[in-house]
């Protein structure tokens, strides 16, 4: 299985994600420039955290117009796994692959801490290695991580089981403590916490590992079918 980590100008968790794949689950991974026209050689697309284009204007807003976005949309239409973490999540909402928006934290400050979240749906290609309702301890680091959507969207994503992770307690004002959601088709995940920073006990938690293992395993199952 081969992963692409998309590098926008200003992405800064790209290397962490690269190491997560290479050293964490020992899969093939390559860093892909935001100007690339094709992702045909890849089985999954990872959009890293950071401050694409400095987060100027609004996080993810300018990256949403980068050349590679059209290609990412095509990959999504093909049903390939696409995961956006933090800034990656913001970009995915900006380009409409995921509903809602990420607005400024309720407390009006950037927060960096390790928080508890719950797995609310483990029947996805991203979470099948976790237990339902399992508590994960994962780092967050964001200033605009407050998930917002209107009431009808909220009902929809609830009804469709699209809410994948919830914070165990309110950390930033997110509606219904939403920490991560998936699209209706089930191949696009966006989440604010950083699983790629939680792969080793030494750094405080290895709860992120199973997320990457889930993607790998789902792929292998599909290939072997």
């Amino acid at each position: 299985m081969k992963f692409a980590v998309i590098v926008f100008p200003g992405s800064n968790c790209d290397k962490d994600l690269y190491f997560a794949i290479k050293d964490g689950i020992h899969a093939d991974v390559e860093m892909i420039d935001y100007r690339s026209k094709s992702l045909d050689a890849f089985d999954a697309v990872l959009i890293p955290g950071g401050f694409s284009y400095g987060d100027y204007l609004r996080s993810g807003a300018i990256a949403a117009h980068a050349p590679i976005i059209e290609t990412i949309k095509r990959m999504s239409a093909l049903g390939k796994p696409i995961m956006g973490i933090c800034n990656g999540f913001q970009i995915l909402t900006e380009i409409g692959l995921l509903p809602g928006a990420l607005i400024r934290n309720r407390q009006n400050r950037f927060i960096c801490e390790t928080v508890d979240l719950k797995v609310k749906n483990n029947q996805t290609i991203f979470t099948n290695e976790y237990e339902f309702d399992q508590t994960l301890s994962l780092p967050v680091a964001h200033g605009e991580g407050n998930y917002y959507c209107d009431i009808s969207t909220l009902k929809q994503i609830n009804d469709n089981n699209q809410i994948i992770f919830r914070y165990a307690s309110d950390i930033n004002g997110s509606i219904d403590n939403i920490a991560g959601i998936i699209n209706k088709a089930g191949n696009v995940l966006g989440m604010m916490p950083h699983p790629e920073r939680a792969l080793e006990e030494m750094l405080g938690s290895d709860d992120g590992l199973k997320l990457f293992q889930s993607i790998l395993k789902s792929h292998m199952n599909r290939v072997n079918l």
Partner: protein
Amino acid sequence: MGLVKVYVTYKESILDPQGEAIKSAIHGMGHTSINDVRMGKYFELNVDNNVSDIDSEINLICDDLLANPNMETYRYEILEDAE
């Protein structure tokens, strides 16, 4: 050259934490007659005069980039020949 001023604000229904923080700072300074503060973004765009349909151009830019319709609204004014 024309000047276009664009104002982008969070939708009414969305809490504005920056506005809140500023409000309490203003109260802290003793100006208690300020009941409410909302904070938004303000842009000044300089536009070539030869643009044929400036309204549609500005609307495009706002919808696609300057505002996120999921959470924000915008309005703008065109000041012809502001030069």
